[in-house]
């Protein structure tokens, strides 16, 4: 039986085989495809999704984003974890 995946900064996540992130030439935007679902990620979500490589811990992704956006690390961490938990609850990311 499946257990709920709880995301924290030490998590290492990737997109499972059945979740596809790709650039749609025709619509000129990035899309996430999953069973019966299609999402158009916003700019921040896309930056996060692209970094889910199954190797880096989330804390590293937060560090990078905080640096790149010259933003407070705590705010970024809250936003990233919230988004990833939502995605995990929809089965769109896995460990």
């Amino acid at each position, binding site marked *: *039986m*499946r257990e*709920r995946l709880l995301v924290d900064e030490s998590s290492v996540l990737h997109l499972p085989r*059945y979740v*596809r992130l790709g650039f*749609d030439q*025709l*619509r000129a935007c990035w899309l996430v495809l999953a*069973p*019966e679902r299609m999402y158009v990620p916003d700019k921040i979500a896309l930056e996060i999704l692209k970094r889910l490589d199954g190797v880096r811990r989330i804390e590293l992704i937060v560090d990078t984003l905080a640096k790149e956006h010259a933003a407070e690390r705590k705010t970024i961490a809250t936003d990233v974890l919230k988004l990833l938990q939502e995605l995990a609850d929809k089965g769109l990311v896995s460990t």
Partner: protein
Amino acid sequence: MSLPPPLGMLCELTHRCPMSCVYCSNPGELVRGAGELDTQSWQRVLEEAAALGVLHVHLSGGEPCARADLEQIVGQACASGLYTNLITSGLLLDAPRLERLCEAGLDHIQLSIQAASAQMAARIGGRKGAHERKLEVAQLVGQIGLPLTINAVVHRQNLSELESIIALAVELGAQRLEVAHAQYVGWALVNRAALMPTRAQLDEATEVVERARERLLGRLVIDYVVSDYHGVRPKACMGGWGRRFINVSPDGFVLPCHAAQLIDGLRFDNVQARALGEIWSEGEAFCAFRGFDWMAEPCRSCPRKEIDFGGCRCQAFLLTGDARNPDPVCELSAHHSLLAGHTCGLAIDAAPELVYRHYSRTP
């Protein structure tokens, strides 16, 4: 304004099926094997769909596994870059075939169950032993590592098993569960008097789903399609006619919705005579109810038309005789009171005889 590309395509590869579900949405007049599109035609349709911008393709039926060339069709869908979903009863699947489908690139399997108990399932699906077989197939899907959605159509006969259906989906390791109230077209329409839920059942079902969603957060995603006969606002059927979806029938007719052929007087194009892209943008059936110009009052001046597009055309036709009327589910429809005739005074244990899906005697 240019027409946005379609998002999804449902390919009804065949009407042949080892089950005979009483809620089946296939038309009364089923297409026989000899009338089905051949392998090359389906492959061409899939290529054209991908070029047109379709993202998801659903291979369905009938039972799609009744086609010996399913692997080739899946292979083409995946090679064309389509996200490929197999909608199946599971009865014709075994481990070697699942592996071949997986190798061909299949992305996802949607397996239907008719109830939680074998006894009820046999009564609804018309086939003893089918339920047990499905449970085995669900295990195999998990072992191969394909993501699994369990689909259960619910109605007055099996709603008492909803809790157990949810528990079963969890036990089978499904990622998703789709609980869909029967849509009254095809064989479900024939059996409407036996399938229509009572108001109390419907309210309880909604509660059961909501509680389960909370309890199973992060473990099972539950999609819930409500029964609209009891409602007051129609749903945006197909996300709007000719806006998102394409349905191809076993014999190659291209439909804006799987039930569209029940609407009298609409002419449908066939993929054997015309390119899919042209059918999508210019075909008579697709243009008939696309946008808002076809609407009469009260839809025409209603602000909700941008949300629900006037509801379901097929339901409007079936219940009022004119597909341009608002879906009678809408309380602003002059025909809304008709629905009460089908939903009021039902008794849970009243059991009109069930009619099982079958081919008509005259070929």
